[in-house]
């Protein structure tokens, strides 16, 4: 119990701050609270199925299989899959980070993980539809066109700019998260 309170102490502190803002007569109080609450609802709705799908992927799909599909030598097929998985996403970008752990563990290449994150951040289909209706077809299509190429290029570039140390830190984070999830 004490450990749990310690783990969630920042959260409780921020809840209190949010409540103070809400009741202190701030003009923005109710709007801020509503934004936090809406986000919370969305996350609690979306996270459990995503994590269960990841759990199933973890136990059912062999590392060797995943390496063939999305590993270092998967080429165009692997990248297309990363694009597809990312754009079929739901939720904000930070919900995608835990997923990259399962992908990395299964041998998905760093480039494809970065493509997945890029697609998740800007190519999410529900969000694109919303962008269409708010900012117009022209704006959305121009952005979409450049983003597709940029995501592929930037993923390749960032992977190439990684130092030995970055690679080690990446591997270590997988090991650390492994210890926490087994």
């Amino acid at each position: 119990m004490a450990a749990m309170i310690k783990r969630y102490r920042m959260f409780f502190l921020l809840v209190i701050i949010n409540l103070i803002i809400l009741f202190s007569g701030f003009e923005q109080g109710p709007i801020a609270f509503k934004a936090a609450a809406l986000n919370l609802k969305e996350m609690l709705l979306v996270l459990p199925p995503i994590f269960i799908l990841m759990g199933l992927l973890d136990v059912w799909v062999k590392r060797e299989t995943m390496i063939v599909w999305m590993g270092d030598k998967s080429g165009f097929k692997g990248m297309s899959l990363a694009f597809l998985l990312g754009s079929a996403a739901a939720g904000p970008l930070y919900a995608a980070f835990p997923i990259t752990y399962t992908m990395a563990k299964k041998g998905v290449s760093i480039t494809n993980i970065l493509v997945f994150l890029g697609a998740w951040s800007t190519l999410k289909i529900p969000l694109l539809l919303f962008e269409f209706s708010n900012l117009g077809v022209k704006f959305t299509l121009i952005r979409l066109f450049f983003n597709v190429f940029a995501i592929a290029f930037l993923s390749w570039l960032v992977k190439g700019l990684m130092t030995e140390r970055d690679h080690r830190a990446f591997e270590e984070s997988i090991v650390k998260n492994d210890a926490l999830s087994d």
Partner: protein
Amino acid sequence: MNWFNIALYLVSVLAVGISFVKDKQKTRMAFKKAFKSLENILPAMLVILMVIGVTMAWITPEVISSLIGESSGIWGVMVASFLGSITLIPGFIAFPLAANLLKLNAGYTQMAAFISTLMMVGVVTFQMETKYLGAGLALKRNVAAFIYSVLIAFVIGGLMIWLP
């Protein structure tokens, strides 16, 4: 609940069902893993959600309007990119906000910079990203995304005028 979430749940239920029929033990293990990794990330996730609440109390749509709406040119693009990077505004608030700003004569370049950085660059979530990608990769991803967002904003701004 929108159609997308419904689809997500349908796929999950179907996958769990098939998995359960094929191997109960493995399915149980998948659930255990799902629960553990969710519990692992939950404290950080909840903190981020609450930070959104706190920042939204200060960085209101009005504040953003006054900052991006009035400052034009390169300075405006920088302000927009900076705001987009440090704030975490969900899409269902950000897009209507951007549409509104455009009506108030904000430039497309500034809006593109704001939206791109908002989606791709995460300062508040950086610590969480580091936990999964390592500090070096997380930093390089964010810096690359920031530079790209600024550059592409000018291209988009230009094309919005130049294209019919």
